[in-house]
């Protein structure tokens, strides 16, 4: 019975949605001083999913794509050039790195940087799977078959538009 309750209680914490970090807490997390505070983001479904939204909004996709890398390094694997803890990733986003990674200091708020960093870690499976957001639809190289536009049947002069 205690064994059954323990995961339930753990689940409880994951779903706690604190929309705003208290300002002193936010300040204490500057530049990787507080490693343990990252737990709040790594195991929280809400923050991870916000991070996923922001990853797209701030166009991280432009270089890193959906974690596979391209212009920037891949984020899906477990090889980190500048360290793989959440504090390292926060520092990378906030301060930038040589050879192309720009600094987002002052462009993205600290809270959001932590959320994005947590999402980046979730790509390589380094967060609790019970909290991790779904894989993206954009992962699909092309639309699913039933989503593709219907090719006109041969011999039919006017192509019909089936999409709404």
């Amino acid at each position: 019975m205690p064994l059954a309750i323990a995961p339930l209680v753990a689940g409880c914490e994951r779903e706690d949605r604190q929309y705003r970090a208290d300002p002193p807490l936010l300040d204490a997390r500057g530049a990787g001083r507080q490693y343990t505070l990252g737990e709040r983001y790594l195991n929280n479904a809400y923050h991870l999913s916000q991070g996923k939204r922001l990853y797209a909004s701030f166009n991280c996709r432009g270089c890193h794509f959906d974690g596979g890398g391209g212009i920037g390094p891949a984020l899906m694997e477990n090889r980190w050039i500048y360290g793989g803890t959440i504090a390292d990733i926060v520092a990378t986003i906030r301060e930038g790195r040589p050879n192309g990674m720009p600094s987002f200091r002052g462009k993205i708020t600290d809270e959001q940087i932590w959320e994005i960093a947590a999402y980046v870690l979730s790509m390589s499976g380094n967060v609790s799977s019970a909290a991790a957001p779904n894989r993206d639809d954009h992962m699909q190289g092309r639309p699913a078959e039933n989503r593709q536009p219907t090719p006109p049947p041969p011999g039919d002069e006017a192509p019909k538009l089936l999409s709404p």
Partner: protein
Amino acid sequence: MSDAVIGGGLPVERPVRRRSMPEADLRDIVLGDDELHRRLERTWATPAGLLGRLSSVDHKTVGWRYMITAFVFLFLGGFNAVAMRAQLARPENKLIGPDLYNQLFTMHGTTMMFLFAVPVMQAFAVYLVPLMVGARNIAFPRLVAFSYWIYLAGGLFIWIAFLLNTGPDVGWFAYVPLSGPEYAPGKRADVWAQMITFTEVSSLAVAVATIVTVLKHRAPGMSLDRIPLFVWSMLVTSFVICFAMPAVMIASSCLIMDRLVGTHFLQSGRGWRCCPLAALVLVLRPS
């Protein structure tokens, strides 16, 4: 005819079955009334002990349990409503935050629809229909007992999740894309979809049992135009359930597959598009 002793159980089909059986035995018409009674008592009695009582398949016991459970959920759903009304009593009240409020009203709607309204109606059917058509028990008694337990499991599942702050918060109709993986993070909507599947399995099983009871287990001489009005209404409702609930189940299964496995039933590709299956979710649409 000794069938009268057996009661409304299975008298009608008897001559047909006898012809197909070997002459050897299984026929109880040679037994005396006392022996028949004893055997029937043994067959239909509730086993002793806690486990025995829990595994009862008597329709009155199961129906009674169904009713009590449904009314407990009614009470819990009403408690949700009271909490919401307390929040709404004043403008900009700070009693309940938006997050908990959304969980509360989703739990209220879900509880009232899937854990009270449908089950309580079926509870009365389980209890009353066999008595009204003169059957000894409902058809498929084990299936009905199973449906009760799975209903209870579904109800406990969602309520424990709610008490652990993982209650669903996407409305009791759970539209995509709000309930999809992108806009409903965490396990909340998963819990909801899973609970729907539990309760729908249960209500389908009871609907099937009710239909078979009414159509096949009526007392001799009770033709369909002589069954009580209540039995008629339960028969019609059960047919409605048989046709409507699978759609709901498919919709909730599609939702949970989209969320957990990454399928694209209800959403797809770049830019969300209403796919035809989303229409199934509209079965749940309140307005």
